[in-house]
Each structure stands twice: as C-alpha cells, then as structure tokens.
C-alpha cells in the first residue's frame, strides 16, 4: 500500500505552478552584469557621472517641457474646436428652432418627419467631415440623426445619459463632452455638443457629434515631434556635456597621472600650464605643490641621510672611545684582585656601568634606526616554540635569583610564522625580563599560541601590576612605573619602546594589561604570514584568572 503524503503532494502541486519569471534568467543575468558595470563606471568616472546626471536632468526637463507644450497644444486645439462647435450648435439650434416653429406638441404627427428634415438640413450645412447631427425628443421614438441614423441610437445609450440629463435638465443649457462612440465606423473619439431646442412642452435635444480624428492626429503628431526633438535634444545635451566634461576631466586626469608619478617617486613630474583659466591655475598650483613636495622630500632625504650619517658617525665615534675604555676597564676588572678594596670596587663599578652604557648606546642606536625608518625586517618562516624556550632558558638564572617560578606553554606541534627571529627573541627577552623583575617572587608564565592568521605570546606575572592607564605608558621611552625600583637586569628604559617598534615592524601588536596587586600580562601578536593584516589574536590580553575575578566581583559568569 502506497501512502501519499497529502502535504507533500500539495507542495509539489504548488511548486508546479510557481509563477514564471517576468524576465528570463539570462536576460536578468545580463542586466545585473550591465548594472554592475554601470555602477562601477559611475563610481570611477567623473565624466560618466556628469554625462549621466546631465542626461537624466535634461531628460526630465525636456520631458516636462515637452509634456507642457504638448498639453498646451492639445488644450488649445481642443479649445478651438470647442469654441467653434459651440458657435456651430448655437447657429444650428437657432435654425432648428425656426424650422420647428409651430411644432409645439410632443405628439404632433408631423414632428418626427420635420425633425428628420431639420437634422438633414443641419447635417448638410456642417463643415466638419464625418460629423453627425442628432435630434432627440423626450420619447425614444422621437429620435433622428443625419447622415448616419444609427447615431441616434448611440445618443440613447446609458453612457450618454449624464450629458442628456444636463442638456434637458433643471439647468438646461449647452453642454459638451468628449466620448468614444461607435456610430458604425468603429469606436471613434467625438466631441459631443448638445443644446435644448424649446418648441413648446418638453424641449427637443440637438446634438452634434464632431469627430476629433484630425485634432487627435495633430496632437499625436505634435507629441511625436516633441518626443523626437526631445530625444535628440537630450542626446545632444549629453554629447555636449561629455565634450565639456572632457575638457575639464582631461586636465584632472593629467593631474591625477602626474600625482601618481609624483607619489611613485618621480619628483620632477609637472603639469603643463596653458592659458590663464581655472585649469591653468590648477596646473600652476599643482606644479607649485609638486615643487614644494620635491623640496621637502629632498630636504627630508638629506636630513635622513644626515641622520643616518650622524647615527653611523655617533656609533662609530662613541664606540671607538668606548672600546678603548672598555679594554681599559676589562684590564682593570681583570686585575681588581690586585687592587685595594676601593679600587677593586671602582673597577667593578666601572665594568658594570660600561656594560650599561654599551647597552644604552645599542638601544639608542636601535631606536634611532626606528625613528629614521631604517629598521629592516628580515622575516623568515620560524618555529617560535624553540625561540620561546630559548628565551626562557637564558633567563632561567635570573628567575632563580629573583625567586620567580617560571613556566612556558607552547603548542605541541610548534608555531611556524614568518617573523624576524632576532627581533622576536629580543621582544620576548625584554618581556620576560620585565616580568621576572616585577614578579615579586610569584610565578611567571609564558604562553605561545597560534592560529591560521596570527601567533601570540603572553607573559604573565603576578607582581605589583599596573595602575589604570599605565598599560599605555609602559611603552613610552624611559618610562618607569616606580622610579625607585632598582634595575636588576640593567634595563635602559627603552626596551619596551624597542619591542613595540619591533612588533609594529612585523605589522603586529604589543599590548599590556595590568591591575594593581594582580600582576600584569603582556601580549605579542604577529601575523603568521608577513604582510597580512591582523584582525584578532589567538590569546586573550586579559588573563583568564583576572577575568574570573572581575566576573565574581560583578556576579557574572566569565
């Protein structure tokens, strides 16, 4: 037994009767493509926009003007015909009244015949071809028309009742209306004019049916001419707009190309200045701007060259005496056992301070390279897990000395990213060193994580933490949270600044979080592929334990 689900059957039945698309799919696709291309062109081309707007506005204006002209002509033609028809029917009514004088009774047996004669006379004197004269009495039998007798039937149709009611009603007078009637030659537009004829008793009604074919042809011809003229005018206007726009857009394009070349480094590119108009002034201003830029750039290049030279010179000049002093200091340090305690101490201090000076000099040179824009990134695919472990091993002894338990968490499969390993190591060394130094003897955890787009390393300590706002300040040069704090690792105050620059050089982030008494966490996030834009980090900046504490504080689940 086969069970047929009625619902399914119904759905299928309805789906069979899905309405057909109004536009075929291929055409729809083509339209969409065309529209997309047009939109693109609209966004990119000023000339296209100007021509398009000109086309649209002129089309609307010309259409409105054309409609007004056509409507005025139509109204004028109609008014002329209406005025003429009013005079015609009033003459006709006077003639009819004179001919029907004496026929004062509606049941006069001679009246129908006389009406036919009157209608024929009036029709023969009409100067409008294909017009009809209809004479009607109060009873349906009193109806006559000329030359086409069926016109009388047409006037007795319900559609003409309103006009007839007015003509012979409480306010009898001459009335007219346009109506489409079929008197035997197909539906034709007529101007129907009617007036009563008072012969005694109930009045007769005289109607002229005047075809409006000639007027309609004229109006349609005018509309056609206006439309064709309008279309041609709009096209011409669009063409003129295109030509005019091109005159303006061309120099702008030249300016754009020149600007592009300028920005590409061809600083001697200039626009041609022709004449004294706005475009010439634009070109002149552009050229002046280019000259100023060129001068500035040359000056900056010179300054940069001087800067580099200064850095190199300073490096060399400072290093040279430093090396000599270093050698002397090393000698003294090596022979400190032979000195008296004060001299031996001085030799130790000298050695230590020379180390610091050297580090400071190195950092200064490094930061000046960043400032001058000479820092270069040597990115290469690097497994960061060993880098992290190496940094931790190197600072193990410091951690032991500070009594800080140190742990490292890395992904089991490694974390390969395109980075400059030297710089990354320096950053991590700096972060871990700071964490150990500020850890207050509490555990420090270094975590590495990676995803498809980014890698991140966090260094978490549970030391004094940072006050609100200090998470931005920590990266300032020579900033110290507590100036009285001793530098255990001999830091220069530029470490985090240099780390920040290193992170930025990679296109990455270096951020800090801290809370007083809760410690701090620093997070380095770098793109996996050099040059990619970071949008997220695989590790949270705010550590989980700190989030849990905050949630507990406000009663939320973290």
């Amino acid at each position, binding site marked *: 037994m086969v069970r047929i689900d009625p619902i399914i059957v119904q759905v299928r039945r309805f789906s069979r009767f899905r309405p057909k698309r109004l536009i075929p799919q291929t055409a729809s696709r083509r339209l969409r493509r065309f529209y997309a291309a047009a939109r693109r062109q609209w966004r990119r081309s000023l000339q296209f926009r100007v021509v398009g707007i000109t086309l649209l506005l002129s089309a609307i204006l010309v*259409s409105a003007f054309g409609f007004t002209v056509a409507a005025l002509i139509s109204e004028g033609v109609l008014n002329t015909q209406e005025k003429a028809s009013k005079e015609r029917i009033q003459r006709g009514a006077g003639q009819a009244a004179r001919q029907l004088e004496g026929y004062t009774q509606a049941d006069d047996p001679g009246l129908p015949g006389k009406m036919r004669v009157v209608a024929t006379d009036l029709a023969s004197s009409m100067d409008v071809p294909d017009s009809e004269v209809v004479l009607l009495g109060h009873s349906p039998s009193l109806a006559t028309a000329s030359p086409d007798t069926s016109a009388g039937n047409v006037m007795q149709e319900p559609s003409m009742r309103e006009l007839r009611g007015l003509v012979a009603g409480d306010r009898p007078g001459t*009335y007219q209306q346009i109506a489409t009637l079929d008197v035997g030659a197909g539906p034709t537009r007529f101007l129907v004019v009617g007036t009563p004829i008072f012969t005694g008793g109930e009045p007769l009604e005289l109607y002229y049916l005047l075809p409006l074919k000639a007027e309609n042809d004229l109006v349609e011809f005018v509309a056609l001419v206006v439309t064709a003229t309008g279309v041609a005018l709009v096209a011409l206007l669009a063409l003129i707009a295109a030509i005019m726009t091109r005159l303006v857009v061309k120099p702008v394009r030249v300016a754009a190309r020149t600007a592009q070349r300028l920005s590409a480094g061809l600083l001697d590119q200039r626009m041609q200045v022709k004449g004294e108009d706005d475009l010439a002034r634009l070109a002149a201003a552009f050229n002046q701007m280019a000259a100023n830029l060129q001068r500035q750039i040359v000056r900056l290049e010179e300054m940069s060259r001087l800067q580099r030279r200064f850095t190199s010179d300073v490096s060399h000049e400072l290093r040279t005496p430093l090396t000599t002093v270093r050698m002397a200091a090393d000698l003294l340090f090596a022979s400190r056992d032979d000195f008296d305690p004060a001299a031996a101490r001085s030799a130790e201090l000298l050695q230590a301070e020379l180390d610091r000076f050297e580090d400071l000099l190195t950092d200064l040179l490094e930061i000046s390279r960043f400032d001058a824009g000479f820092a270069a990134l040597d990115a290469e695919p690097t497994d960061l897990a060993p880098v992290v472990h190496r940094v931790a091993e190197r600072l193990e002894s410091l951690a032991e000395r500070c009594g800080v338990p140190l742990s490292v968490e890395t992904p089991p499969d490694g974390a390969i990213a395109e980075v400059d390993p030297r710089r990354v190591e320096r950053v991590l060394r700096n972060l871990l060193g700071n964490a150990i130094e500020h850890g207050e003897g509490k555990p420090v955890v270094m975590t590495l994580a990676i995803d498809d787009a980014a890698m991140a390393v966090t260094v978490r300590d549970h030391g004094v933490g940072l006050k609100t706002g200090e998470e931005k300040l920590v990266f300032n040069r020579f900033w110290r949270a507590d100036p009285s704090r001793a530098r255990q690792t001999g830091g220069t105050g530029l470490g985090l600044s240099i780390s920040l620059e290193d992170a930025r050089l990679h296109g990455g982030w270096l951020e800090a979080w801290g809370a007083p008494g809760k410690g701090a966490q620093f997070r380095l996030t770098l793109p996996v592929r050099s040059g990619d834009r970071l949008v997220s980090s695989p590790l949270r900046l705010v550590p989980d334990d700190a989030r849990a504490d905050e949630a507990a504080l406000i009663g939320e689940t973290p």
Partner: protein
Amino acid sequence: MTRLRRLTAALAVTVLLLAGCGLPDRTDPKYVGPAVDPKPAQDRAQDPPRPDGASSLTDLVSRYLMTSVAGNVTSTDDPNAISETQTRMKTFMSEQAAAQWPPRPQLPLIVVQVAYDKVETAAGSDKSSLTATFTAVGQFDRFGRLGEAQVEKETWSEVFEGELVNGQLRLSKVPPYMLLSVAGLKEWYQPQPIYFWEKDVEVPKLVPDLRYMPLVLPASKRVSEVMRWLTTGPSLWLATAVTTVSPDIETKADPTVGPDKRVTVNLSSKAAGKSPEELRKLSRQIRWSLMDHPPVELSFENAKDTMNVSDGFEDDNAAVGDIDQEKFVIENEVVRPVDMPAGGPPELFAPGPLNTAVVSATIDREHTKAALVRKAPNNKQQLWVSVADPKAEPKYVVVNEIPAAAALSRPAWIRRPEPRFLVADGSRLWAVTPPAKAGDPVKAEVVPGPNETVLTNVSAFSVAPDGRRIALIVDNKAMVAALRFENGRLSLGGEQRLVANSLGDNQAIGWMTETTLAIGGRANLANGSYTAGTYSLISTRIDGTGEMPLPLLKPNVTGGYTVTQLSARTNDPTESLQVLVLFEANQTARVVYASETQEINLTNAGPSPTTSAGQQPKRALSPFYAD
C-alpha cells in the same frame, strides 16, 4: 530611497508624462453656455427705421409707416413735447413737407392695414405718387393700449408723393396724422401684458392687461414705460375686476437695469410707508409686468439699500403651473377619456345610467366635480352637475333652475374667483354652484351684464385662468369682458370689447394664452364659396391684432370646416408657447398640430365603456380638456 529607485522613478515619470500626451478618450460633461433663446429679447434702440436706401416710393412709404413706432410715447415731463418719433418721421420728408407737416402733440397713432396701388411717375419729372388704402385696425394711446380707432371711415385712401432730394428719395406729401402699419406693429412692437391685482377675493392673483412696448426704446426706458402704465391704471374694460396701484407709489428717478438684468425701481419716500405685504405685492406686480420677469428691487429716495421681495412671483399668476393635458370626448353619447387608463375612467365618468345621452361635458382636474349636458325630451338639452360624493349614486343631479334649451354650450368649471360651473343656454350665461355636501341643493343664477343688464345671445364662452376675464360668443361675434365678483355673485364688467377677426362667423372660443384667443367658426367665404386660402380656426390677440390661422404652418386645412366647439388649454406664461386646442368640426373631434389637424384617436388600455367587442366606435365629439 536608493539611487537606483530614484532613477527608475524619474524614468517612469518621464515615460508616463510622454504617454499622457494626446486627447482623452472621455471627459465629464462641461457647461459651455446657455441654451439658444427661441425668442430673444429684442433691443432695437439703435436701429430705428430710416429712409436712406429706399429703393422705391413704395419701399419708402412702407418704411415711413413703420417709423412712427413709439409715436404714442411722450415725455413724462412735458407730454406736449415733440417726440423723437415725429422728428424721425420728418427725416422721411422733404424740407418743405417737413415744415408743413403739422406735428401736433398728442397725435393719436392709428394702426392700419395697408394696400398699395401702382406708383405713378410724372413724365419728365423726378416726382412720383402712390395711393395707399388704409383699413383701421386700432389706435394706440399713451399707455401702450391698442384700442378702437377713432376714425371717420373704417377704410380710406391717401396719396403719398415723393421726389429726389440730394439723390435720396423723400416724401413731399404725407397725410397729416400718424399712421403705423400692421407690419410696423408686428416688427416694432412687442405685446407685453402688465398686471393688476384682482379685487374682491381673499387671495388675489394678478390679471394681465395687454399693452404694446415699442422696441426702439432702450431697456431702462422700457421699465420707465411699464411703471408709467402701472401707475396710470388698468384698461377700462378691466377696471371693474382689478385694483389700481396706490397713488403713493411714485417713481423718484428712472429705474436702473443691472448687468445681470436685475431692475431697481426708485420710489419716493411716500412708498416707504407702505406695509411689507403691499411692497411685496408691488414688486411682484412690477416683475410680472416686465419682459422676461427679471428680479426687481425697490429703493426709496435713491438710497443704496434696496428691498428684494419679488422672489416667488410665480405663485401670483393663476396661469402658471403644469399644464394638464388630460383630454376627454363624447363617444356614442358617453363621456370618456381619450386615452382610457388601465384602471378605467374617472369615477364621475364611469359607465352608468347618467353617463348616457351626453352632448358635452366638463370635469375638474381633480376629478371631483363634473357637469354633463344631456339630451332631454323634445330635443332639448339639460345640465346635470355632480353631487358632493363622486362615489355616490346617482352621481349627478339635474339643474332645474336652468330651463331645458335647444342647445346648451359646453359647460366649464372655473376655480376663480369662486369655484362653480358656467354654462350658456344660447341666450344667457348661467353660474351653477354644485352641492357642497350630500343633501345640499344646486344653486344656479344668471350672470348679468354690466349694471345688471341681461346678457343675450350668448352661445359659447371661455374663462381665463385668472377667472376675471371671459371671452364670449355673442351673436356669432367674439367679445371679451371682465368678470366682476361682488357679494358672492358673478357679473360682467362695464365694457365688452369686440374681438374683430376675419372669420365668417364665430361659434367657439378658448384662451390659448393669457392674451390670445383661439376662435373657431365658419370660414369667410368669398362669393359664398370656399376658395384656397380660407380657414375657419384662428388665434388672435384679445384686441383683434396678430390674427393667425391655425394650424400655424398650414392654415388652409380648416377651410371646409365649421367649428362648433372648441377647448383650449391656456399656456403657462413662463414657458414656451404650445398650441393646445381641441375642436369639433363637421361632427368630428379633432386636435390641432403644427401643420395639420387630426381626428382624435381613442385608445383603450382598459375596458372601453362605449364599445363592446366587435363594435366599431363612432366618431368622437365635443372634445375638451379637464378644467
């Protein structure tokens, strides 16, 4: 709204705009102007008859006999002043003739029929002469009244002489009085009745008094003329039936006619003291008396504030209202409607013992009162009138006060001044009051002539809708007289006016309009035989002018008839003219149309009381409209 939709909307509007060009397929009816007035008010103030361009002496004389139009109108300030008319008449004359022509003031204006002889030209001279034969028709007085001409002979001849003066033909000899041809009367005067309130009734209506307005007067002057006529009073023959305008009603200045044709009549302060009802009646009386009855406002001492109480003026004329055209005839001596309705005839004309041997009859429009003239023994006729209850039996009682006569006229029911029947017995006119309720007797009394004289030889009559004017056939002549109503009695007014006409004799009469009678009788036979061009049925104004044979378009069809009975329905003066005339001639009831008369065809939507199946109906006789 996204840019795309804006663009699409703009394009759609563009397309629609273009598509909307062209004539519409249909529009609503639109008013473009008034209907053509079949009889537009004529204003010929700028177009008086002139002598220039006259092609012959006959042409010049015929124009001259028209140019005296308004010769009866004199200045209100100085009735003796030489009128513009006389000045104009002199332009037709040579200098010498004009100097000699006696332009006496107050010259009567005599209306004449004219017949011209051949023009005779003296040999070798530019002078010519023309003999014209005049037949007096009437005479105009200063108040637009056309009365009997005061002439020595009814017909006379005059010689006109003409000569060339500066290349233009001028009259060198003219009769020493003012003449107006009938053609001039027709072309240059417009019959214009003025109205006076009837007297001796509780709810008076207006009664028309026929006057003639010269068309050379401009609109405002015509209003002045009407005011002058009204304040002067009615024609003598009507004076016993109507009131005059109070002497306190004086016009302070000429009336003004506004662009909307509204007339403002300036009265003196004496009129301001009149009661509102009197002023209302005055303004409506003036409104009725003006051509086309424009709204009338009264002002006093030229004050800016005016009083407009002339609206509702239609109610003051008994002739206004739907014209009842219900027709009845006598068929096989039984009275019945011409078009028998499905429900049968009115109760009073239902088949019965008294609806037999009927010669003529009448019924009111409400079908509650009827009278029959029935055959009586010895070839006499008697009048029977309906009892109070139309359903009662018998429906009629005989009026014994009226002796059976050889021939009674068709009776008539009048509503005004008091409802009653009238009948003529070939000699006297009787007024019959039917019983008001069961058991009441019928009252019949003779309608006396003026000063209680006895009317004689009255064979037919017709009372106007106002009930104060009666047309009579007396001695086979048509007359009109006023009907007085005093102390509940009808009597004729002081003067009976003959209505002269061209028929051989007059036998039947009816009021076609307020001022026009239909008269039937025998044609005027030349040498005792009928000739082409003879007729026996005419319409004419009550002063005997404007005679036209009926039917209007083919007058000769009645040449062989002898019209013995006639019933006319009086036209509503505010509507177009209808000729509603039924008559009996040569033993056949007929109806008048535009170009023919037709035997009345009887139709039976219900059972005919007169014919049974298979029986051919006899000819209908004695047709009449419900009164």
